[in-house]
């Protein structure tokens, strides 16, 4: 369990369910984590493991219906975000918490100019007039490295390349100097050279503005490069959580271990064959009563099918939800 301290954001036992015609989908189950000031938390996990849903649940961005946040609390600035009224949430979104969405191609409104879209939160939250908002928008675009920013304000999103659009999204999220930035796979759609440009930018920003960042990605390489802590998710749950070096050096959860092995590299030895995690991700159609990874787990045993493991601390600030002890190679006790 994460220790309580001077955290900006503290999530406890978050549970999100999609009520669909075919039944409930338990997309997020008892997720808890916290975010320290100025920290970058990397979130990794397989597609469909609930990364995006978790983050969107925090500030009520999921479409409801079908989404329902069934339990948990999200402490931010002394308030529980899940209990805030719609109006208070609106005041908070964009101003205190910025969000960069997964798909830059569709996340910008195609019929408004980029400038309009950047200026919108500025005028709403910071009460800026048009001229000042414009000036700030130019600054933001320059900050994210778009050349000739003032001219490009009046362009439409489709006139931007994918990488530039992603940077516009980041500019929007940063517009009001939020305390927390949530970036959902901001670089997946980009090629490496542009991804590198953005990673540089983020490092820069963190230094300058001191904001806390949650960074979702599949790319372990990215996490390794920029994150302070990492949270590995699987099947709607937190599988492992800890400082990045610690987790990469001593992965405690069998899923994390398997994940590390699947990735090929441009450097070093070229493996003759890639490792895969056999099997399929879980269905999430019921509240989990057993370990979601057990069907694909190399170390699964009886208990895994009977009980859903809760998170246990394996070392300082590093915990995992598994009955198997990577140090001993046998079942964990207690």
């Amino acid at each position, binding site marked *: 369990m994460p220790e309580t301290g001077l955290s900006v954001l503290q999530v406890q036992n978050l549970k999100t369910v999609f009520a669909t015609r075919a039944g409930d989908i338990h997309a997020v189950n008892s997720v808890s984590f916290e975010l320290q000031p100025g920290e970058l938390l990397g979130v990794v996990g397989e597609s469909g493991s609930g990364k995006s849903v978790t983050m969107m649940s925090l500030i009520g961005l999921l479409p409801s219906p079908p989404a329902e946040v069934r339990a948990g609390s999200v402490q931010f600035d002394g308030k529980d975000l899940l209990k805030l009224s719609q109006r208070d949430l609106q005041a908070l979104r964009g101003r205190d918490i910025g969000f960069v969405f997964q798909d830059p191609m569709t996340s910008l409104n195609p019929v408004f100019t980029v400038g309009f879209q950047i200026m919108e939160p500025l005028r709403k939250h910071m009460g800026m007039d048009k001229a000042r908002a414009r000036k700030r928008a130019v600054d933001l675009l320059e900050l994210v490295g778009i050349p000739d920013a003032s001219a490009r304000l009046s362009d439409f999103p489709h006139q931007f390349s994918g990488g530039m659009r992603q940077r516009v999204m980041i500019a929007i999220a940063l517009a009001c100097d939020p305390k927390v930035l949530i970036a959902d796979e901001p670089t997946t759609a980009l090629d490496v050279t542009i991804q590198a440009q953005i990673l540089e930018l983020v490092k820069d920003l963190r230094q300058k503005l001191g904001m806390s960042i949650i960074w979702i990605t599949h790319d372990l390489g990215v996490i390794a490069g920029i994150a302070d802590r990492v949270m590995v998710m699987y099947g709607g749950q937190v599988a492992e959580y800890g400082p990045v070096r610690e987790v990469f050096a001593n992965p405690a959860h069998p899923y994390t271990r398997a994940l590390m092995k699947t990735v090929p590299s441009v450097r070093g030895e070229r493996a003759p064959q890639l490792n895969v995690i056999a099997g399929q991700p*879980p269905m999430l159609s019921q509240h989990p009563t057993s370990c979601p990874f057990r069907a694909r787990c190399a170390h699964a045993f009886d208990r895994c099918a009977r009980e859903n493991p809760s998170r246990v601390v394996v070392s300082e600030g590093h915990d995992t939800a598994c009955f198997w002890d990577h140090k001993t190679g046998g079942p964990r006790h207690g």
Partner: protein
Amino acid sequence: MTDTATPPINPDEAFRPPRNQWWDVWDQFKTHRGALAGLAVFVSIILFVVVGPMVWQVDPGQLNIRMRNQGPSLDFPLGTDQLGRDLLARLMYGGRISVAVGLVAMFLGLVIGTLIGVLAGYFKLLDSPLMRVTDLFLALPLLPLLLILVTLFRDTLARTFGESIGVFLLICFAIAITSWMQTARIVRGDVLALKEREYVLAARSIGTPSLRINTRHILPNVLSPIMVSATLGIASAIITESALSFLGLGFPPDFPTWGRILYEGRDWIEQYPARVVWPGVLISLTVLSVNYIGDGLRDALDPRIRGR
């Protein structure tokens, strides 16, 4: 196995050879409440007009001069008209024609509209000419056109198919030829977008010729706008038929179609509103039921919704 990606494998489903996908459609259709209600109403209307006259064996043309303009009674459940004809029998008998014309004309119109829309959308060269033809048809004054059609073809058709079938075909054709344009436009718009889809390219890479690309990949995906056109098309076909018959371009005056009953009742609206309300209700019910069936079908035909 409950938490693997695939739902528990249903033993019947597993290894069952691929079945006609219309079964899937039906399975899904069954779960759509509005559509089922629509289907029930539609079937009742069909029964009403097809089986109805066999049960309620009253000649719709039978005059009962002494029983003119009666309200509902045991002998005349819906009352009688200005010549003492039984309204119920007329509605049942007339409904056959109205529903048949509505369906056939709508269908013909859809076929023409879809064909033109697909051709225009798919083949760049045909686009401009076909859309101009659509403009032409939109601009053509309907009535003179129908007059010409009737003059040119009624006798020939009547001789080849017999009077009533000839007139029926003529009317359906006339309505279809003057109502396909909307469909064509909508379909064209969708096809323009669809043909750029990757799965169309994929089909081309397999070597599927244009014709089958259209029938297999494009047409099924424009079904939903077509369905909307169908719904609106039935209503306008029924109303147009009555206008035609009323002008003497359609069925002989002793064929009591719904539209005609409605038109005839128009003058009596104040005295005997029932005479307008009943055919009006039947037309509206038909349209509504088709609309809901269309809704259900659209959902059912979309496998993405089906799974939900």
